[in-house]
């Protein structure tokens, strides 16, 4: 009889797959997860889910899991299983030895946005009290670091201004460089719900994505701009707002710095940003630019959501500023239904940004150069701290190649697959004397590791995640970690091994420490989250259960600041040798570098990266659907299958980056954002030729 097994136990937790942060009930039987069902009270998902969080959980018991700590003296040696203590002692010993030889700044650490807030916090603490330097970075370096920079510069807070539900009160939704239905599916569903209720959708994206055109969800305006022209087009939109006087003068006068506004008006108001000038350069109809600008400015409630299509450019931070400027100019910030909102990739990228895993910042975006902030932590940690910024992740690799950086502790990341310029990263790692990787599986990066620490999945530990709407939710241990330790315990072990004595009985104590040291978190505690379900920071005495909408009265920086956003074309250019622009993105069923999803049945939908190419470009090259091609750029090459697709314009090709063997980052450039070094993943000049086998 087909009677289903009835789960014995159900535990509420938070999905780690993307920045939506859905609440789930993990249902278990016999100590194993039998299913995950969406939690109706989850404030980010209200009982909805996607194929990843709902079904793709089997990765946690995949045979590939690393089940014991391992070490080796050389990457050419075989791994040797050791005890945790031996692993910690060996790793710490190596780091100490390197520091003694090459200086205190020759080692660093990288935290993972798949880890909890508490774990990320502990990683930066590891660097600051264990390594005694600021060489700590996090993976948002390669995705949303420009968000933090650009939004802080204009508004004063590097995070989403709204909560997800707020989109239901929007009349106009402007999506820039994002495809929520693939990248943030549960939010994508909420966006579609808003569109079905009458909100108009405006999309700026080189591709005709599902967001642009799917059943019952069609963009009113789609600017399919040439990759790399974001800032140009956003400035042109601003040009229309300024020259047609569509801005909200009362708002700007009340809330923003008027002098900066005038400076900005004179810049974007210049004829060089007129749609008639910009249109041809960006591959757009000038009237579409005007149409979009007018619709956005007309509102009444217009909101902006954006993704890596804005940030992963050499002007990523500038692009984010353009959005902040636009929202302020039109008075579209500080209430329900408006705002500027980054769609963050990994489950805890916002946490990665907030929890001080930066070479230049402590928790809550406070500079290490600020003595008062340092004093807070020096007092808490009873140790003197370095007052100068440390190395960013790409700079660590640069320095490693140059020979001045020799050891790294990488938590839950696979930079060989996910960071720009794969060959450069490999050279950097090969140049190091001690690479410590803490991960669930052996990865491209562990090939270069000397110490392999078995990480715990989000199903195997307690802690909190912060999603893309600043919402802090509980992650709960459903099953025991395979190697006995939760990630935070591993990092504590490493800190102790480095000679700094430290003890926590539970991650809640780490959050308490964060609350003690960080004003935006001062009211946050496990107890509070248990009680109210989830809490959006800032959470403090003024907002004891958190804050849904930011910037309602003032901006954190006081007056909103209009930044000048001059368009500087990327150095990456097409020419006769590399006539196509490659841009990258993700697909619904796979997640990031695919580490987890590739180890689930999600491969039924998508089991390799595929290159989308327009019919024109395919025909010119004699290519057909399903052919394999060689993709060559100035930096490297790889092979892919192709789909002839109406979703990309002639001149543009597109692929995902989920599969290790594809090595898309062998092709992408090493250009990066001027402010944060976020890589320019979205623009690479390539040529595509058929592989004849």
């Amino acid at each position, binding site marked *: *009889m*087909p*009677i*289903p*097994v*009835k789960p014995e136990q159900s535990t509420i937790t938070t999905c780690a797959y993307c920045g939506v942060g859905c609440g789930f*009930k993990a249902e278990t039987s016999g100590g194993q997860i*039998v*299913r995950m*069902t*969406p*939690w*109706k*009270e989850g*404030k980010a998902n*209200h*009982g*909805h*889910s*996607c*194929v990843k969080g*709902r*079904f793709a959980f089997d990765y946690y018991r995949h045979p590939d899991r690393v089940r014991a700590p391992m070490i080796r003296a050389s990457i050419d040696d075989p791994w040797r299983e050791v005890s945790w203590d031996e692993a910690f002692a060996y790793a710490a010993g190596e780091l100490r030895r390197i520091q003694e030889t090459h200086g205190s700044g020759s080692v660093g650490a990288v935290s993972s946005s798949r880890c909890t807030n508490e774990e990320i916090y502990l990683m930066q603490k590891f660097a600051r009290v264990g390594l005694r330097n600021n060489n700590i970075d996090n993976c948002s370096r390669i995705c949303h670091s420009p968000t933090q920079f650009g939004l802080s510069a204009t508004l004063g807070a590097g995070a989403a201004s709204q909560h997800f*539900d707020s989109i*239901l*009160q929007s009349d106009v939704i402007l999506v820039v460089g994002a495809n929520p*239905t693939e990248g943030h*599916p*549960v939010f*994508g*569903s909420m966006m*579609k*719900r808003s569109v*079905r209720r009458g909100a108009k959708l405006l999309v700026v994206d080189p591709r005709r994505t599902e967001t642009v055109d*799917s*059943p*019952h*969800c069609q963009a009113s305006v789609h600017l399919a701009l040439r990759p790399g022209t974001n800032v140009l087009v956003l400035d042109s939109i601003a040009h229309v707002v300024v020259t047609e006087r569509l801005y909200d003068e009362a708002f700007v006068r009340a809330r923003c710095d008027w002098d900066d506004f005038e400076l900005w008006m004179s810049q974007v108001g210049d004829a060089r940003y007129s749609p008639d000038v910009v249109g041809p350069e960006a591959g757009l109809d000038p009237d579409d630019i005007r149409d979009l600008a007018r619709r956005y400015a007309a509102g009444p409630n217009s909101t902006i959501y954006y993704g890596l299509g804005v940030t992963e450019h050499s002007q990523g931070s500038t692009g984010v500023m353009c959005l902040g400027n636009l929202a302020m100019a039109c008075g579209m910030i500080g209430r*329900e239904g408006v705002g500027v909102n980054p769609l963050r990739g990994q489950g805890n990228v916002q946490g990665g940004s907030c929890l001080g895993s930066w070479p230049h910042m402590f928790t809550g975006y406070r500079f290490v150069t600020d003595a008062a902030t340092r004093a807070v932590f020096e007092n808490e940690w009873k140790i003197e701290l370095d007052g100068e910024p440390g190395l960013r992740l790409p700079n660590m690799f640069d320095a490693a190649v140059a020979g001045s950086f020799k050891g790294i502790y990488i938590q839950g990341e696979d930079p060989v697959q996910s960071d720009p310029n794969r060959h450069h990263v490999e050279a950097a790692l090969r140049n190091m004397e001690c690479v410590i990787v803490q991960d669930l599986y052996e990865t491209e990066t562990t090939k270069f590791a000397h110490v392999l620490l078995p990480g715990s999945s989000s199903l195997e530990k307690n802690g909190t995640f912060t999603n893309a709407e600043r919402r802090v939710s509980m992650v709960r241990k459903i099953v025991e970690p395979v190697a006995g330790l939760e990630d935070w315990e591993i990092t504590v072990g490493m800190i102790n091994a480095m000679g700094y004595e430290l003890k926590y009985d539970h991650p809640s104590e780490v959050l308490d420490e964060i609350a003690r040291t960080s004003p935006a978190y001062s009211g946050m505690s496990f107890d509070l989250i248990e009680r109210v379900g989830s809490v959006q920071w800032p959470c403090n005495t003024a907002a004891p259960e958190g804050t849904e909408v930011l910037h309602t009265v003032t901006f954190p920086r006081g007056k909103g600041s209009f930044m000048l956003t001059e368009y500087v074309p990327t150095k990456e250019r097409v020419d006769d040798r590399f006539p196509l622009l490659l841009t990258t993105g993700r697909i*619904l*069923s796979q997640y990031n570098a695919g580490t987890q999803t590739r180890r689930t*049945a*999600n491969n*039924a*939908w998508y089991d390799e990266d595929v290159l989308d190419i327009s019919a024109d470009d395919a025909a010119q090259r004699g290519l057909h659907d399903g052919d394999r091609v060689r993709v060559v750029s100035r930096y490297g090459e790889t092979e892919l299958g192709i789909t002839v697709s109406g979703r990309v314009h002639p001149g543009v090709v597109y692929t995902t980056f989920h599969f290790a063997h594809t090595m898309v980052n062998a092709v992408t450039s090493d250009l990066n954002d001027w402010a944060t070094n976020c890589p320019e993943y979205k623009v690479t000049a390539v040529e595509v030729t058929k592989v004849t086998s």
Partner: protein
Amino acid sequence: MWSELRALRDGVDLGTPPRDGEPVTLSVDGVPVTVAAGSSVLLAAGIAGCTVPKLCATDTLEPFGSCRVCLVEIEGRRGYPASCTTPVDDGMQVRTNSEMLTKLRRGVIELYLSDFPEGDIDGGWSQLNDTLDQVGVHRLADDHPYRSGANHQSGVLDLSNPYFLFDQAKCIVCSRCVRACEEIQGTFALTIGGRGFGSTVVAGQDESFLDSDCVSCGACVQACPSDALIEKSLFPGGYERADSRQA
């Protein structure tokens, strides 16, 4: 604005989405209850503690009114309106139980049972089981005239999705999956094909779930009250049909 999303409670299904309207007071089986205007009588009954059986209604979806087991009587109104699609009114007097209501609900449930695999009821823990308990009918008598009628017991068994299956034999055509795909997920991958007794849930153009536009979000599985759509992981020994009465 947010009640329809934020007033949802896990483990509690009041049948229709919570609303934000002004308070309205009515009585259900003599129990006074105050709910937001725009709420359904079904929801008000649930809050008043009077459990009205339901199948096609769930609080994450807009009311639909197809299953006809949530019928009630309302003072001053003709007939037996479905409580899920009837909005509350101030001073409304609702009866959730009467001889006629019992008879109608049993009559409807018997129709469902006449096209449902008998062996899949005992031991089940679906919402359909709950409803059968509430109505007090679990199987058709051996000599019931509805036995051996036309049915869908040899219908599609779709195992194509790696994570969930669809067994048409257990489908009660309440459209909750179709509505979830539309209202919650926004993909519109499912529809009801055909009409009348021939109505069936189909993916895409009557193709397998995997071949359809289904994005496997699980909303349909979550919405299904009869386990026709269900996670494969709950069947560690594989899935076989209980009985295959020939159509």
